[in-house]
């Protein structure tokens, strides 16, 4: 526990933690303010109705979670890559290994702290996003989203799925940075993988459903949302299983690389 507490303290003091959160919140605010301001200025009724679906009812909440999982996932990937890679770049891993700390325990605990920070960030961003959603609805003259009791009951589970998706993407960034043994190379390579998968998903939409970023992003999507980009969702259980598998694989690689690495830098 002292290791986890120390890892959390380090992340709380790390400027990148706050910068990433601010970037996410700023883009979220821009998105909803633009949506609210523009919705009632569009003359075409069909287009206007389409935009208003982003602000209506349960779809609005899913769009919000999807937004957090999409942009938030990229930020989580870069953040986790920066944290994992910095241990090598700054040489701090060398210090703890020389103190007799277990390499894999250290790496996995560091990632556990990242996952906790991501959860806190998601909760805050979701709460801020809901407030922005209400504001945008009011600006657009759309009734505030009405959520059924059943949907509200399932909401924590939906947020949990979004968190799992974010953590999986963060784990990929963390794993890549560990393999690269570099903060910069890790972040760069992680983002490159992410962008590459987006290209693949355009060229091969059906096959790309099984790829790590796409599968985790689809955790909170509805079949209708998937249809708008021309794909079919995987079975939710399969998506969940694949996301968990990618998460475990990324962390397993990170732990294995750290455990067997000769630390020269």
């Amino acid at each position, binding site marked *: 526990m002292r290791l986890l507490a120390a890892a959390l303290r380090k992340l709380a003091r790390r400027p990148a933690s706050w910068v990433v959160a601010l970037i996410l919140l700023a883009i979220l605010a821009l998105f909803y303010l633009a949506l609210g301001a523009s919705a009632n200025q569009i003359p075409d009724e069909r287009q206007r109705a389409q935009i208003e679906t982003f602000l209506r009812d349960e779809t609005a909440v899913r769009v919000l979670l999807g937004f957090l999982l999409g942009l938030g996932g990229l930020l989580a990937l870069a953040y986790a890559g920066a944290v994992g890679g910095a241990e090598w770049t700054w040489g701090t891993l060398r210090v*703890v*290994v*020389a*103190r007799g700390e277990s390499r894999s325990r250290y790496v996995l605990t560091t990632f556990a702290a990242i996952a906790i920070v991501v959860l806190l960030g998601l909760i805050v961003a979701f709460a801020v996003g809901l407030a922005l959603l209400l504001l945008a609805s009011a600006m657009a003259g759309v009734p505030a989203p009405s959520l059924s009791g059943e949907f509200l009951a399932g909401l924590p589970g939906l947020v949990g799925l979004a968190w799992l998706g974010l953590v999986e993407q963060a784990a990929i960034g963390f794993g890549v940075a560990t393999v690269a043994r570099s903060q910069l190379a890790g972040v760069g390579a992680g983002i490159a993988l992410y962008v590459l998968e987006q290209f693949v998903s355009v060229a091969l939409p059906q096959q790309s459903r099984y790829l790590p970023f796409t599968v985790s992003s689809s955790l909170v999507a509805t079949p209708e949302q998937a249809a708008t980009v021309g794909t079919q969702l995987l079975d939710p259980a399969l998506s969940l299983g694949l996301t968990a598998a990618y998460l475990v694989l990324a962390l397993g690689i990170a732990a294995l690389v750290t455990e067997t690495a000769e*630390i020269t830098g």
Partner: protein
Amino acid sequence: MTSAAGGSAVASARPADRIAAHGLAVATRGLTKRYGARPALNGLDLSVPRSIVYGFLGPNGAGKTTTLRLLVGLLRPNAGTIELLGRPFSWRDRRRLFEVGSLIEVPAFYPYLSGRDNLRAIAATGPPVERGRIDEVLEFVALGDRAADRYDTYSLGMKQRLGIAAALLNDPPLLLLDEPANGLDPAGIVAMRALLRLLTSRGTTVLLSSHILPEVEQLADVVGIIAAGRLVREGRLDQLLAEGAAVRVRVATDEGSRAAEVLAAVPGSAGLEGPTQGPEGTTLTVRVAPDRSGEVNRRLATAGIYASRVEATSDLESLFLSLTGRPDEREIAAVAPFGGAGTPP
């Protein structure tokens, strides 16, 4: 220089199997490490007695840092054994490192944390650290006043002191320090020397790697000199200094060979180095006790050779250079600094 090694048997040159590991803080036997095809350590036999400062010397690239990395499990040896504090140590025995404090290469900390928070973060790893110990070690290295400041605002010397503080967190019986005087100002070096003396008086063993010879000369009880991955000499500093004693003379360039004949005939000489041509004349070094410099000068004068300089040396530098390779003075004068080929920018 005191010899805390006392009566411990540290011979100046001996086969590995003659040294019992008992009573040694660090013992390596046949330690070998290669980076790809390039050998970094080639059968290193190191014997570090307990409760002393051991000066681990060698030129750049000789294998000092590689040795320290192997001693703390950062690297795996290709061959050979390591004993720490009398017990075998392998790469997987991480808990054995609970008894070792180390500062390997440059200090490594989180730049955005304060000095104190950095030590807190490190204290959460490895062995448990006693409450209050962090402030104690910060005071130890005179960083108490700056403990709340961010690490990235520290000077090089302060970073180095924080590195030493981190190594001391667990009050380890064995301390491995790689170039600890890097970046320290003269007052800092004096303070570090006092600190290390204090620690050895309490029973701590300090293995100090350095290429700053005067620093080691003032601090070490026992010295090991490594070159090209092998231990070329190990022994008590006072013994080694006596072995390395010499009288160095400089004569006119055209008198070098005649002076060599005269000096080769000095009775009791352990050898003659030179003549070496330099920009200011020819240098020769005769291996005799420093108090015979007058006699050496008289012999030269009797032969009609008048030395422009006679220097009695009994320093580690002479010994170090004689063991690791003395650069030719003409080469020093001719080449660019640090062996670079071009003109400095």
